[in-house]
């Protein structure tokens, strides 16, 4: 298939061509089927909000899921199920707030922030963080890293996803700009450094339990590698 964007400055095409690092398919399918922990799901939902390519891939998975429903054998329903659904149609429903993008923060981030702007906590050396959620499944947070500083390490156990929302960072594996997602697991030893320019703001998720002190050693030694 070849086409050169939609021919208008629709923003999506511009973003699409600039995003180089996408969500691998096994994570997209795990997200579509609901088998991704909350922290990882938050990053996937945020990337999909920014990336038409991964949105299409997710929708393709949903289409397969839909056809699997179509191909499922009918199972008889309780006699009153339909009438009880029909009776409920006119009941007013409790409104669920819907969050949309605000500045650099896509809808799923604004939802995690409950519509407010992030409140940053200093981690030292100019690095700040705002924890969006943490629990047994891992954690998801916003990180703000000044140019030349290392992106804090989450402790390296389990999968880590880091999605750039502003600025960029680079490491041994490449350059990551707005919309790019870096996937790291136990095997990958990497040291991402924020590029010169605006502070790099990332959404970072890990499956490992939150360990504050795991951050500190690397943070306290600024790395002058750029």
């Amino acid at each position, binding site marked *: 298939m070849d086409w050169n964007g939609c021919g208008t400055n*629709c923003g999506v095409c511009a973003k699409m061509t600039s995003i180089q690092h996408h969500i691998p398919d096994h994570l997209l399918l795990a997200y579509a089927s609901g088998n991704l922990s909350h922290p990882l799901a938050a990053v996937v939902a945020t990337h999909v909000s920014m990336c*038409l390519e991964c949105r299409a891939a997710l929708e393709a998975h949903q289409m397969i899921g839909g056809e699997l429903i179509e191909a499922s054998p009918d199972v008889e329903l309780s006699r009153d199920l339909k009438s009880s659904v029909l009776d409920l149609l006119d009941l007013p429903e409790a409104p669920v707030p819907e969050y949309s993008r605000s500045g650099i923060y896509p809808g799923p981030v604004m939802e995690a922030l409950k519509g407010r702007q992030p409140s940053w906590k200093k981690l030292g050396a100019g690095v700040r963080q705002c924890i969006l959620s943490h629990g047994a499944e891992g954690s998801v947070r916003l990180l703000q890293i000044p140019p030349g500083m290392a992106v804090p390490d989450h402790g390296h156990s389990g999968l880590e996803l880091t999605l750039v929302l502003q600025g960029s960072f680079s490491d041994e594996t490449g350059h990551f700009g707005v919309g790019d997602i870096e996937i790291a697991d136990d095997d990958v030893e990497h040291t991402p450094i924020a590029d010169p320019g605006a502070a790099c703001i990332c959404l970072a998720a890990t499956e490992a339990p939150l360990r504050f002190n795991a951050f500190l050693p690397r943070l306290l030694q600024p790395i002058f590698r750029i």
Partner: protein
Amino acid sequence: MGSEPDMEASVETVWMLAVRDRRCRESFGALFDHFAPRLKGFIMRSGTTADQAEEIVQDVMLTVWRKASHFDPHRAQVSAWIYQIARNRHIDIKRKERRPVPEALKEEPNTEPDAGQILALEQETRVLKLAISRLGEDQRDLIEKAYLGELSHAEIQQQTGLPLGTVKSRIRLGLERLRHELRGLR
């Protein structure tokens, strides 16, 4: 608003547009009769009890009615939309928290349906239906497990032989192109 597109959209799409645009209860009843027993069957494949499955079916069908304005025939078959609602509901119940979902793409609210786009999607669906019908029993079990959320991302990654990869890639490219064309039209 929004007359049904004058073409061979699937009957489910036509019902869904009647629900969305005219709040047609008869069409909703038809959708219920079509999808509720299948959805119950699909959910029960994951070992969910009949009672729990019906609870999910009830919630899903109510969401189909209430969130009908979110249905976009250019983007999804009714079945794909229902799959997404059903998975969200299943997880919300299991985890007792709302699952993070992508921001909705903003379409012009009253865009006339584009028959060509909808038909292109129907075409992809036919290819997919055929591919599913040709799966062997083992492959079919595996794919159902994956889409019912019974395989972790690591397990999916290890399953190099997960079927339907080629069909999926084709659909993805089609959907991506459709999205661009739709944006370009505005």
